[in-house]
């Protein structure tokens, strides 16, 4: 693919709002997981909840979009100078030339969950205040962000489970390659809701303790929430020093099972191979991989096989889900941004709760932070339905 410049980005997770708060947490090893007291949920688990979502107010003309998911998006849009950067891009390109390709898995379903509790006992009707199109509807996030940023290019939501905010980078690359857009806002948001907390609990995939990716005693995921955005633009032939490029994208399907990964990580490996091919790189060109690494027994083992099969056992890898929890549909963008922060600062993040590495796993998994120059980083995101996506970022050549 033609490399794209990743000119601006913003991030919100349980580690805090903004790149500085995120980096501070990674430097100091401060994780965001806490015992779950979300809403009326009574599950014995830890979650990565974002502070301050309740206090977010959407602008008066967009209050119909008010829901937890769009509030998370609003928080992220106004961190790290992102909305201002998009405004100046809008001046340069025109509102109709900037696309909006965002991911979410559950959108504003929490609003529907609350509305179903408040149904009219006589008629069964939902409360009049419930607005389906602007909250629960999967497309609501892209519609909100497009309105909020004043953009008029093509806009849609990709909802391919937990790979979704990684996959949107590929959607944007295609749209820019065809000339339908000159730039794109990618990323998205996924917010805590009862559907995913009780749903993952039903699959017996939720850990009672903060999750421990690649640990011999790992016992499942800790769920989290988050939002993040990136502005992608055509690469400048003479890029400024310090410019980061999206170098490659790779997508695949497991074709195996709806909620269990392929045992040998075939789909995962295929996504990584395709990302390398799209970037024109070899396996040894990758300096760090931010893993999907959710801390499920099978998932980590499958990814380990894919990593060691393709990259060997020398490339440093880690999952940052011990910090943020598994932010589901937001994991792709949260971890893409953490990977780019690693590239920019040379801080290669460790893995807070991982104490005893599973001896059956052969990757060079980092428990503690390391530092060093990175030239190219890869980030993996996999989801239900066997959906896999891998991205590669690096310095502009």
């Amino acid at each position, binding site marked *: 693919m033609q490399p794209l410049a990743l000119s601006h980005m913003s991030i919100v997770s349980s580690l805090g709002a903004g790149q500085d708060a995120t980096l501070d947490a990674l430097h100091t090893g401060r994780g965001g997981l806490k015992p779950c007291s979300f809403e009326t949920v009574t599950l014995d688990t830890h979650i990565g909840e974002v502070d301050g979502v309740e206090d977010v107010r959407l602008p008066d003309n967009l209050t119909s979009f008010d829901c937890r998911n769009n509030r998370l998006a609003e928080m992220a849009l106004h961190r790290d100078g992102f909305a201002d950067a998009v405004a100046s891009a809008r001046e340069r390109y025109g509102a109709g030339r900037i696309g909006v390709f965002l991911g979410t898995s559950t959108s504003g379903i929490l609003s529907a969950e609350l509305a179903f509790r408040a149904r009219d006992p006589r008629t069964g009707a939902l409360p009049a205040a419930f607005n389906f199109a602007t909250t629960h509807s999967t497309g609501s996030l892209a519609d909100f962000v497009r309105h909020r940023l004043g953009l008029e290019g093509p806009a849609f939501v990709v909802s391919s489970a937990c790979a979704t905010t990684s996959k949107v980078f590929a*959607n944007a690359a295609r749209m820019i390659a065809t000339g339908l857009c000159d730039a794109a806002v990618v990323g998205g948001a996924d917010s805590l809701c009862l559907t995913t907390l009780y749903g993952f609990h039903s699959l017996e995939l939720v850990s009672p303790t903060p999750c421990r990716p690649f640990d011999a005693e790992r016992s499942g995921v800790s769920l989290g929430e988050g939002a993040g955005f990136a502005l992608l633009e055509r690469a400048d032939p003479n890029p400024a020093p310090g410019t980061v490029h999206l170098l490659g994208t790779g997508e695949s399907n*497991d074709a195996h099972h709806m909620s269990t990964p392929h045992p040998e990580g075939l789909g995962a490996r295929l996504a990584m191979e395709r990302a390398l091919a799209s970037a024109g790189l070899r396996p040894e060109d990758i300096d760090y991989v931010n893993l999907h690494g959710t801390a499920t027994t099978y998932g980590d083992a499958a990814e380990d096989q894919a990593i060691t099969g393709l990259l060997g056992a020398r490339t440093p890898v880690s999952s940052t889900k011990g910090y943020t929890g598994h932010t589901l549909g937001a994991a792709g963008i949260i971890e893409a941004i953490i990977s780019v922060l690693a590239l920019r600062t040379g801080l290669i993040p460790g893995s807070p709760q991982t104490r005893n590495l599973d001896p059956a796993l052969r990757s060079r998994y980092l428990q503690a932070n390391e530092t060093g120059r990175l030239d190219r980083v890869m980030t993996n995101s996999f989801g239900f339905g066997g959906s896999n996506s891998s991205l590669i970022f690096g310095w502009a050549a």
Partner: protein
Amino acid sequence: MRAYVEGIGLLGPGLPGWEQSRAILTGDCAYVASPAVLTASPLLPPAERRRSVPTVKLAMAVGAEALEQAGRDAATVATVFTSSSGDPDTLHQILETLATQERDISPTRFHNSVHNAPAGYWSIATRCREPSTSLSAHDESFQSGLLEAAAEVAADGWTVGLIAYDLPYPEPLGKVRPITGAFGTALVLTPQPTGRCLACLDIDLSRGDEPVSRMADIGLEALRVGNPTARALPLLAALARVCAGGSPERVVLDLPPSGRVVIRVDAPCC
């Protein structure tokens, strides 16, 4: 963006398949609405067949029809799934369960609730490991899926199965989000013309406000505005006429806030 149509799938009220519906779409036969019949795909392994929900049945039926017509092994074809919603019945049942004290969601129901469930079942059934996108854009879901599929054809040179579907919600969601009938359609799009090509599409974005294409038949027009995926009907009607030897047509689909998707539909030789 140019894409060649190699196969078409269709299933909707009174539209029981592409071949059976061509004369209705050209206006040569009267349109009579009757509910679409959904069955689990024989392509699926028994466990997944049992677990199939309506969106999976609908998406797989139209996808399989289009791929069969194209004469391609589905394992080699990338896919774009598009719908305004995840499976409506599944979402309704989960929301009802979460409103009870027990909140005891079934694990199968939970994995069926993801928007990309049809894509997951499809890849299991067809052994397809090619890239697959599942997208959503409320009433513009079909138009957005068409743009994405055309971009994959044009930018990546892939052969793409575009699979679009929308079904009604049970009450009470049906009141706040009314959707007419179960309607699905699929197109197999390729970058180069082949011997099996049915038509050629030139797809572009327009910033204009020209009139959106409509259906002449009152019943089909009601379906077009009532089901997001049925926004595809004017394109399908143009394909039916061009495939029957008609002259090239121009189809205009709405893409708010300020755009249109403009499609020139022509015979495949040009």
